[in-house]
């Protein structure tokens, strides 16, 4: 009996081996259906601010440079090489030859100039066709784009600006067909024409976006015939669609579904630390919260580890600095405010609020990777604050209104987060905490203005070389810790759950995932 079983196992094993070997060679063809939480806003990524837009646009559009697969260093994409002048002001890019846009327009220096000028030059005829977001993080520092010859272009900045090449790899700096921009005008976001491995085909609002393989792609052509990006807003419905096979990938599942998916042999799971942060900002312009001792007390009152265990189900690490430890420049010497109710109470008493105070706690209405269940997180924080006598009322608004009102500084405490696309500390420190950004509409929603912090961040922008910039950032993190304008909560782990028939599925920490290499077993 036993021997029979053994033989059977060996036999089955022999049967399986050929199929395993076969499975490793990419199969051409097939449709990938990708279930996600919402529709894109625009596919012209120079106008995009949200992850759902990026997911679609990045399949179709390409940049001059791209982040390497496994690191935050950049490598050539539409540019083949680049160099910076001695004074650090002029960047020269050599462009790839023989590349065509999906509409047949040749890619050249003029295409780069048009794609960039429409964003940075208010007098450019195409400037009015878009709302250019986050310029400070993208092309903002670029003052002039010059065509040198057909395949050479230079970018000039006013001051030396070290993060420029990393900025160019961000979704914010795509190269689009100049002919298409002229043709579609304001509607370019609904009809993107780039050079990427997939061509845009169709967009049914709030339902799906379809892209197809670009057979004339300059590089490695994609294996898939087609990708359908399908919006399924309800988390449980999205997970069910994955279970039934209606979608091949389901994004942004809640931690409990992830636990269930892990137990299911039909799914594959990738986990990766992200370059994000979820935080609780304390509006330092409000009288009580302007007191550093109060902010430190709140920092001591919140048990991050329990929030991570409960809300993130362990798929996160506690945050103590404004950006995650996977990025360079992280200050490992800083010790977090430990969870200590007595210390919090003592600090409150010292600040003159021995009995606590009343405040408002604004909770995000939507879940994000950095804050998967904001309202529940708010309820937990509310509970922690109550134990030290702080009576926080939870306030909710619709997402657009929430962003608007927090940018105006109407809140006391509010929750928000950030995904730092280019993984440069400047992206977090300047963008979210510098006094330049503390005026409504503010990105620095703690409205924290610290002269020394600000000076260090600005200086670091003008220096080249990570090693030289890092000491500035180490110091700024000390100031941030001492002043506590935020309670940094968590750096979440991002998770990709997909059907095991898919291979070579990417999951990049910065959210910029081209599906060029994916292939699907028949």
């Amino acid at each position, binding site marked *: 009996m036993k021997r029979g079983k053994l033989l059977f196992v060996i036999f089955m094993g022999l049967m399986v081996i050929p199929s395993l070997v076969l499975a490793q060679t990419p199969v051409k063809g097939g449709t990938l259906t990708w279930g996600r939480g919402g529709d894109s806003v625009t596919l012209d990524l120079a106008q995009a601010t949200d992850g759902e837009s990026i997911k679609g646009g990045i399949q179709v559009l390409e940049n001059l440079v791209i982040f390497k697969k496994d690191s935050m260093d950049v490598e050539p994409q539409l540019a083949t090489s680049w160099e910076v002048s001695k004074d650090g002001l002029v960047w020269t890019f050599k462009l790839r030859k023989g590349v065509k846009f999906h509409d047949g327009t040749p890619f050249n220096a003029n295409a780069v100039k048009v794609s960039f000028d429409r964003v940075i030059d208010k007098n450019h005829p195409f400037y009015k066709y878009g709302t250019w977001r986050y310029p400070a993080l993208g092309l903002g520092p670029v003052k002039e784009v010059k065509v040198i010859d057909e395949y050479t272009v230079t970018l000039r900045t006013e001051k030396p600006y070290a993060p420029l090449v990393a900025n160019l790899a961000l979704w914010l700096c795509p190269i689009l067909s100049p002919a298409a921009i002229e043709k579609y005008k304001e509607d370019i976001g609904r009809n993107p024409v780039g050079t990427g491995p997939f061509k845009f085909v169709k967009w049914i609002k709030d339902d799906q976006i379809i892209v197809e393989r670009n057979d004339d792609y300059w590089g490695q052509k994609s294996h898939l015939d087609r990708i359908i990006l399908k919006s399924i807003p309800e988390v449980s419905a999205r997970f069910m669609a994955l279970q039934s096979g209606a979608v091949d990938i389901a994004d942004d599942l809640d931690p409990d579904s992830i636990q269930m998916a892990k137990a299911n042999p039909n799914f594959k799971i990738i986990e990766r630390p992200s370059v994000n942060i979820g935080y609780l900002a304390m509006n330092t312009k409000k009288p009580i919260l302007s007191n550093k001792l109060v902010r430190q007390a709140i920092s001591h009152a919140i048990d991050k580890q329990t929030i991570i265990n409960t809300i993130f189900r362990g798929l996160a690490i506690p945050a103590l600095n404004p950006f995650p430890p996977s990025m360079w420049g992280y200050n490992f010497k800083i010790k977090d405010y430990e969870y200590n109710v007595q210390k919090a109470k003592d600090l409150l008493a010292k600040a003159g609020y021995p009995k606590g105070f009343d405040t408002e706690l604004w909770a995000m209405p939507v879940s994000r990777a950095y804050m998967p269940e904001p309202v529940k997180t708010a*309820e937990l924080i509310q509970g922690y604050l109550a134990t030290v006598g702080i009576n926080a009322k939870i306030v909710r608004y619709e997402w657009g209104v929430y962003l608007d009102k927090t940018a105006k500084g109407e809140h006391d405490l509010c929750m928000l987060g950030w995904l730092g696309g280019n993984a440069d500390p400047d992206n977090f420190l300047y963008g979210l905490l510098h006094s330049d950004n503390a005026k409504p509409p503010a990105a620095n929603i703690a409205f924290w203005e610290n002269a020394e912090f600000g000076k260090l961040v600005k200086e670091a922008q003008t220096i080249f070389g990570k090693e030289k910039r890092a000491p500035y950032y180490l110091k700024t993190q000390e100031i941030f810790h001492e002043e506590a304008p935020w309670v940094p909560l968590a750096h979440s782990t991002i998770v990709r759950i997909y059907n095991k028939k898919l291979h070579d599925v990417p999951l990049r920490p910065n959210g910029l995932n081209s599906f060029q290499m994916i292939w699907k077993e028949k």
Partner: protein
Amino acid sequence: MEKVEALVELKKNKTAMAGLILICFLLILALIGPWISPHPPLVPDPINRLKGPSWSHPFGTDSLGRDILSRVIYGSRISIIIGLIAVSISLVPGTILGLLSGFYGRKVDEPIMRGMDIMLAFPAILLAIFITAILGPSLLNTMIAVGIVYIPHYARIVRSSVLSLKEQLFVQAVRSLGGSNLRIIFLHIFPNTIPPIIVYATLGMGTAVLQAAALGFLGLGAQPPTPEWGAMLSEGRQYIQNAPHVAAFPGIAIFMLVLGFNLFGDGLRDILDPSLR
């Protein structure tokens, strides 16, 4: 004499009694809630999250480890208060509008009733969502929204009774004795409209509780961490696959309360509506 008769009738009516018992049970639960609930309803206990029913947590715990039994008990207070206040909000203006509209006819009737018709033309929940969207999400605004939505129903019922009442002999008698219009409306006609109002208000309590729960489910009602049944149900939906108890118990509670009001309301109608005898 009449009252005693009605009580006797009530005792005989099994449906009404079943409803009454359900309501009384939940009412008592609401009243003594703070003394009998095993745990504080608002304090999270994250380590014990999503635990199934057990001796220490008979209804299990929710996603933040709060005791669901305690939350359901506290929720009964909220739902009953919502029912009472929302019904009062629709009852008072609805009755007054119905009285005036029915009594004065034409010139008063037309504008009031056409206004009511417009409100009735909206699906109730849509109108309630619209009102909470304007007022902002909160428990009080839920009650106001649900209350406003049902004003036309009361106005119509009262108006139709007034229309038949005002032709009756006793009204003409008062009038010939020199009674003013207001006196006739409020002292002579109004008391006779009370039975149908009571029936409708009782049934309306059930509807109001359901509507408020629906708004809570959509996130437009009570704000967290308030243990409102609709909001609890909505939260539980997310865990329906691995922790169904989170949604089940608030759902059962809503069901019981609404069933109670409906049974009682139906029974009352049998007793108070002479045409059904």
